[in-house]
């Protein structure tokens, strides 16, 4: 029997966080894609995309870093898969801005000292799963349906904005996360703060901001009747999971709301061994919830 061939192949840009605070996102992504027979090949020696701080004060730097990464990604075949919503946004914005602004194109080319190679399609994991792979196939791959689990899908601000840049879904009323996780049989709740900002940018400098904004998000998810929150961005995760205890202390309200990366839940459903899903790394432990739902 010949070894099963991958159905799809992608180059992979994990982004800084996935190698550190979001390592469970990275691990579960790899686990999931393997289970789904989707090839994922990390771009060697990729660089930081510059995230918010770079474009905040130096757009040219931000564009150059992203353009460099796009260039580097050409070393590996396949569209560029991106897990982090912020990296995804920066890479897409770069393609967009440079396509429409000749002056900036020249400046970036100068900074890189190379002709620009920006054409590789950049895709968020959600897009790959929902469109390239397909929801039917995803549903078919489910071994452990997540039925009974009430999930609040949190998009955050960057996944779908600004309007014609990411082109992932309707920018004000997206449903791609719900559709993807819905394929596992999970129940998605409807709630008000799906796209409100968590304050990511201020994690370091102004935690007070984060406590306020992320607190409102947790409260909204609770109101919506969710058991847990699902995110597709390490920055969101950082604020909602890592700071959840602080938020609870500051607000005097208890949430105990596990915050999953979408790939953690999908991999769980696809039967990937729970030891590879990094549940232990989460600050708010999901263990009792998953046990209660018969998923552990």
């Amino acid at each position, binding site marked *: 029997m010949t070894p099963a061939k991958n159905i799809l192949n992608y180059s992979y840009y994990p982004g800084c966080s996935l190698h*550190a605070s979001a390592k469970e996102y990275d691990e579960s992504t790899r686990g999931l894609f393997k289970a789904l027979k989707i090839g994922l090949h990390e771009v060697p020696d990729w660089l930081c995309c510059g995230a918010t701080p770079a474009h905040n004060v130096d757009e040219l730097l931000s564009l150059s*870093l992203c353009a460099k990464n796009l260039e580097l990604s050409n070393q590996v075949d396949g569209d560029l898969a991106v897990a982090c919503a912020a990296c995804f946004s920066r890479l897409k914005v770069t393609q967009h801005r440079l396509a429409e602004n000749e002056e900036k194109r020249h*400046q970036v080319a100068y900074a890189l000292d190379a002709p620009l190679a920006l054409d590789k399609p950049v895709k968020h994991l959600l897009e790959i799963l929902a469109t390239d792979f397909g929801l039917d196939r995803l549903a078919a791959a489910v071994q452990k349906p997540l039925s009974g689990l009430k999930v609040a899908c949190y998009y955050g601000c960057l996944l779908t904005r*600004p309007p014609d840049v990411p082109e992932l879904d309707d920018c004000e009323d997206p449903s791609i996360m719900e559709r993807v996780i819905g394929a596992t049989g999970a129940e998605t709740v409807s709630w008000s703060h799906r796209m409100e*900002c968590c304050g990511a*940018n201020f994690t370091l400098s102004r*935690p007070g901001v984060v406590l306020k904004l992320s607190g409102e998000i947790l409260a909204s998810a609770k109101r919506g009747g969710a058991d847990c929150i699902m995110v597709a961005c390490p920055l969101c995760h950082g604020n909602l999971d890592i700071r959840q205890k602080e938020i609870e202390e500051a607000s005097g309200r208890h949430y105990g709301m596990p915050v999953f990366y979408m790939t953690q839940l999908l991999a769980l459903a696809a039967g990937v061994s729970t030891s590879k899903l990094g549940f232990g790394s989460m600050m708010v432990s999901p263990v009792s919830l998953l046990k209660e739902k018969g998923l552990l």
Partner: protein
Amino acid sequence: MKHSKMTLSAETMNLGFVKKVEQLSGSSVRRCFQCGKCSAGCPMRSFMEHPPNRIVRLLQLGQFERVLAGRSIWYCASCETCTTRCPNKVDLAAIMDALRKLSWDAQGPSKESLVQLANRLFIDNIRTYGRQYEMRLAAVFNLKSGKLLKDFMLGPSLFTKGKLKVFHKKNRNIGEIERIFSRIEELRRKGEAT
């Protein structure tokens, strides 16, 4: 300053500055008709002394000192809500970027030093390591901002969860990073970029 009288004339309206902002952001400020939708949805509105619409309004009148004086631009989270919903396609998030850049360059008179510090460290990190190392970023930030105890409680638990790496691999593109930085600086020295 905020409440002092504003005298308008060709001299007091720094429209050159506004042109620069428009150029950097790729967005018109004149298109704004002050509907306030940007401010209505801005998550950071309550932290800002000038709500986003007022920033645009001040720009329309060429009042850049008033814009840069406040800490508002540093409290923008770059969430793009304003840009997404503006009926006139005023790209406020990009305008905020442009303003921060101009304020940054001018060693701006901003009151918001902590955000600036975090940004600076972040960018320094990239320049030195090519990637972001959160542990180091946090540590240095705390050191420099004098907030030694800040996140003290969080640090150890993150650490035990394996979320903060102390050691990191050397990036083979590190030399290229440095060259990108210096070529950008060179462009600016030559006045070919802002």
